[in-house]
C-alpha cells in the first residue's frame, strides 16, 4: 500500500484511453507534433492508439524521446502540444500526457525493447551529469554507435528527476526503468564522481573523443536574510530528503511557509500537504496573472489545500517569524511557522568544467565551446528549462557531436 505522498494519479484503462484518443481530430499537419520541443510526435502516436496499434505507438514515443515515460508524467504539456491542440476549437485539448503515460506503461508491461545500439564506430564520449539531457544525449549517441560513459556526482542517476520531482508525480521506479533502458543500450554510469575533484576535465578529454557537460541547475539559491536560520530549508534539500525517505520523515511540522512561485514551489507545497502538514502557506513574488508555475501545477497545489498568497516578498525574518510586504499594495503580514522552505530558484555550478555560464546559461546559441572536444547541453544551454527541452537539447548535442566527429557520416 503506497502512502499519500507516493500515490500517483490513476492512469487510463484500455477503454478510457480509446475514448480519449477518439476525441483526437487526427489533424492534417498536426499542430501538437509541431509544438513538441522534443519531437515526440503526439499526432503519430495518438493515431496509432486510435487504430489499436499500441506497440507502434510505443515505438514512436520511445524512438523520438528516450525519456518518454518521464515526459508523459512531468511535461507541462499545456505550454506545448496541448496548447496547440485543434480540439480546443471544440472544447478542451486532448490529454496527450495521459495517453503517453498509458502507452509507455504498456511498453513496460509488454517488456518491449525498442531502442537499438548502433554498430560501433570506435569513438567514445564522456557525459558529465545524468539528468534528462545527459541521458538523452547518451541514448542518441549509443544508437549512432558511440560508446558512452556518464559521470554522476551522486550515488544514483537521474539528477533532478531522481532527487527533485516528488514521488507522486514521478515514481522512482519509472526513473529506474528509463535509465535501465539506456544502460541496457550500453551506457556506463560512473557514480559518486565529481569532475574537478575526483577526475579532471583533462582526464576526460584524454580518455574520450568528446566530453559533454550536462550539469543542471542543481544548487539551491539562498536569500541573504535566511542564511544560517535553523527553521529554513531549501526546496532542493527538502524534496531530496522526502523522496529519499519515500515520504517517511520525522518531525512533520504543524505548519509550513513556502517562499516561491515556480513549479518547484508547487511541488514543495503539495508535498507538504501530502505529508499531512495542516497549514501550508505559499507566498509568491509574482501575482497570479504573471505566475511562473504551470497552470496544471498551480491548480493541483490549490486543490491540495495550500493557501497561496500572491504578490508578497519577505522583508524581514526573526527566527521562525517572517514578515512579508506586498509589492504594490500597502499591505504587510507576519507569519510564525514551524518550517520555512525557500523555493526561490536554483543555480548552476560549472566550476572546473571548461564551460562559462552567466545567469545559469552559456551566453551563446548551440552546444559547442571554444575547446573542440568540449560540448554542453541541458539547462545550461539556451532554451526552456523543462525535461522535454532537455530531451531536445540532448538529441541536438548528439547530432552536433556526430557532425563534428564524423561529419554526420557513418
Amino acid at each position, binding site marked *: 500500500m503506497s502512502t499519500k505522498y507516493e500515490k500517483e494519479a490513476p492512469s487510463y*484503462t484500455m477503454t478510457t484511453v480509446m475514448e480519449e484518443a477518439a476525441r483526437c481530430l487526427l489533424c492534417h499537419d498536426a499542430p501538437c507534433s509541431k509544438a513538441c520541443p522534443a519531437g515526440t510526435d503526439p499526432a503519430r502516436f495518438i493515431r*496509432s492508439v486510435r*487504430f*489499436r496499434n499500441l*506497440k*507502434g505507438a510505443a*515505438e514512436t514515443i520511445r524512438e523520438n524521446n528516450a525519456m518518454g515515460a518521464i515526459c508523459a508524467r512531468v511535461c507541462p504539456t499545456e505550454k506545448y502540444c496541448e496548447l496547440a491542440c485543434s480540439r480546443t476549437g471544440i472544447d478542451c485539448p486532448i490529454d496527450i500526457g495521459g495517453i503517453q503515460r498509458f502507452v509507455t506503461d504498456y511498453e513496460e508491461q509488454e517488456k518491449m525493447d525498442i531502442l537499438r545500439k548502433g554498430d560501433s564506430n570506435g569513438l567514445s564520449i564522456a557525459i558529465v551529469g545524468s539528468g534528462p539531457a545527459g541521458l538523452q544525449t547518451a541514448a542518441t549517441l549509443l544508437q549512432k554507435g558511440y560508446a558512452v560513459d556518464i559521470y554522476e556526482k551522486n550515488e544514483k542517476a537521474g539528477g533532478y528527476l531522481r532527487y527533485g520531482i516528488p514521488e507522486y508525480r514521478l515514481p522512482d521506479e519509472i526513473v529506474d526503468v528509463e535509465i535501465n533502458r539506456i544502460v541496457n543500450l550500453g551506457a556506463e554510469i560512473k557514480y559518486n564522481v565529481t569532475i574537478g575533484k575526483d577526475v579532471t576535465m583533462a582526464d576526460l578529454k584524454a580518455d574520450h573523443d568528446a566530453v559533454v557537460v550536462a550539469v543542471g541547475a542543481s544548487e539551491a539559491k539562498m536569500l541573504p536574510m535566511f542564511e544560517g536560520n535553523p527553521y529554513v530549508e531549501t526546496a532542493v534539500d527538502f524534496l531530496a530528503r522526502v523522496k529519499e525517505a519515500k515520504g517517511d520523515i520525522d518531525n512533520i511540522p504543524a505548519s509550513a511557509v513556502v517562499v516561491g512561485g515556480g513549479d518547484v514551489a508547487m511541488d514543495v507545497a503539495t508535498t507538504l500537504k501530502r505529508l499531512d502538514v495542516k497549514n501550508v502557506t505559499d507566498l509568491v513574488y509574482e501575482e497570479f496573472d504573471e505566475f511562473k508555475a504551470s497552470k496544471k501545477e498551480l491548480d493541483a497545489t490549490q486543490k491540495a489545500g495550500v493557501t497561496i498568497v500572491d504578490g508578497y516578498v519577505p522583508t524581514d525574518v526573526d527566527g521562525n517569524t517572517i514578515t512579508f510586504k506586498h509589492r504594490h499594495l500597502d499591505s504587510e503580514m507576519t507569519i510564525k511557522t514551524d518550517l520555512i522552505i525557500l523555493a526561490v530558484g536554483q543555480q548552476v555550478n560549472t566550476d572546473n568544467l571548461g564551460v562559462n555560464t552567466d545567469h545559469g546559461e552559456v551566453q551563446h546559441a548551440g552546444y559547442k565551446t571554444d575547446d573542440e572536444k568540449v560540448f554542453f547541453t541541458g539547462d545550461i544551454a539556451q532554451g526552456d528549462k523543462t525535461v522535454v527541452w532537455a530531451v531536445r537539447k540532448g538529441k541536438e548535442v548528439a547530432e552536433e557531436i556526430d557532425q563534428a566527429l564524423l561529419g554526420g557520416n557513418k
Partner: protein
Amino acid sequence: MISKDLSVEFLGVHFENPFLLSSSPVDNCYEMCAKAFDEGWGGVVFKTIGPKHFKINEVSPRFDELTKEGTPFVGFKNMEQIAEHSLEENLHDLRHLKDDYPNKVVIASIMGTNEEDWETLAQLVTEAGADMIEMNLSCPQMTSHEMGSDVGTNPELVKKYCAAVKRGSDLPMMAKMTPNITDMVPAAKASMAGGAVGIATINTVKSVANIDLDRKVGLPIVNGKSSISGFSGKAVKPIALRFLQQLRTAAGLEQLPISGIGGIETWQDAAEFILMGATTLQVTTSVMQYGYRIVEDMKNGLMHYMEDQHVEHLSELIGVANKNIVPAEDLDRDYKVYPKIDWDKCIGCGRCYISCFDGAHQAITWDIKTRRPSIDTSKCVGCHLCNLVCPVGAITTGEVVMKPGTKGNPEDVQIESSRLTHPVQ
C-alpha cells in the same frame, strides 16, 4: 521500429504488402495512387474503368454516414459509380503508374455491358501494363441493369463475361462479388469456370442509411429524392467475414485465393480477414474518412502481430480460422459458463442488471443499498450479455458447469477468449 516481411503472392503476382486500395473514389487518378504508394500501400485496384460508350454522370451530393452515439462513420453510404475520367485518361494513368512504381501492383478494375465490352477492356488494360484484372460484377448503384450487382447475381452472365475477359487477356483475373445475394458460392464458381482464378469480396451492401424526417426522403437528398445504394465501412465487416467463411468452406473452394474487402481499418481487422482466408486486403471507407496514412498502423500492427504469433510469413496465417467456424448444429451444447464479477472493478452502475433483466434471464439481483449486482446461478444461462455491457470489464467467465444429463469434464471445455476471459481493462 519493427521490420518484418509482409509480402504475399496472390494469383501469381508478388505484393510487397497485402494492403490495396479498392476500386473506388480513393484511387481514381494517377496522383491519388502515387500518393498512396508513397505512403506505403502495396497496390491499387484502380477505379473501375468502363466502356467508352457508357457515360458517367454523377449526382451531388453522393454520400451519407451511419452514426451511433458519438461515433461517426459506423457505416458509409456511397452513390458514386465507376470512373468518370475518359477511357484514354484512365489507360494513360495505369501506364504511368506502372512506369513510375514498377514494384507496386496495379490492378485494373473493369466493367462492361456486354461480352464485347469486357473483352475489349481486358485487352486495353493489359496493353496499358496492368498486373492483374479485377472484374467488377458487383457495384450496386449503376444506372444500367446490364452492369454491376445485377450481373453478379446471375451465374450464367458471370461465367460468360469472365470467359470474354479471358479471351481479351492472359493476365491473372479475379471476380469481385456482391454480398447482395443469399449464397455467393454459385456466382464464385461460375466465375472460376469462366476463367477467374480468385475472388474479391465483398462489394457494398444495398442500403438506405437514413431518412430525413422533415422531407420524408432518404439521404443524401438529390433534388428531393434518393436511391438505394452501397453501404460499407466497419458495420459491414461481419457480413464480409461471413462470406469469406462460406466461400472457403464450400466444396472445391477450400484453397480459394481471396482479396478481402469490407470495413478494414486497423491491423486487427486485417488480421481477421487473413485468418478467414484473405491473401490481399482492400480498403476504401476508412481511407475516405482518415486518408492513406492509415496503412502505416495497419502494416506496423500486423508486423507486431506476426512477431507475437511467431510467424515469418503472412501465408502461414491465411485461412487458419476457417476450420474453427462450424455449423451451429456442430457446437458443443453440453455446458454453460457462469459469469464472474470482479468486485474491485465494479463501479455499481447497474447496466448488467438492466440488460440481464430486460434482455436475458433475470439472473442478476441488485442490492439497492450497496449498488452491487450478484449472479443467481439458478436462473443464469451463461449468455454473457452482462460481460458485453459492463463498462469497466468487471465481468468475465467464471465456473463451467455441465448441463444435467450430459457427460464430460468441465475442465476440458475450452472457453479461453480475448474478450470474455481477458476483458479490456
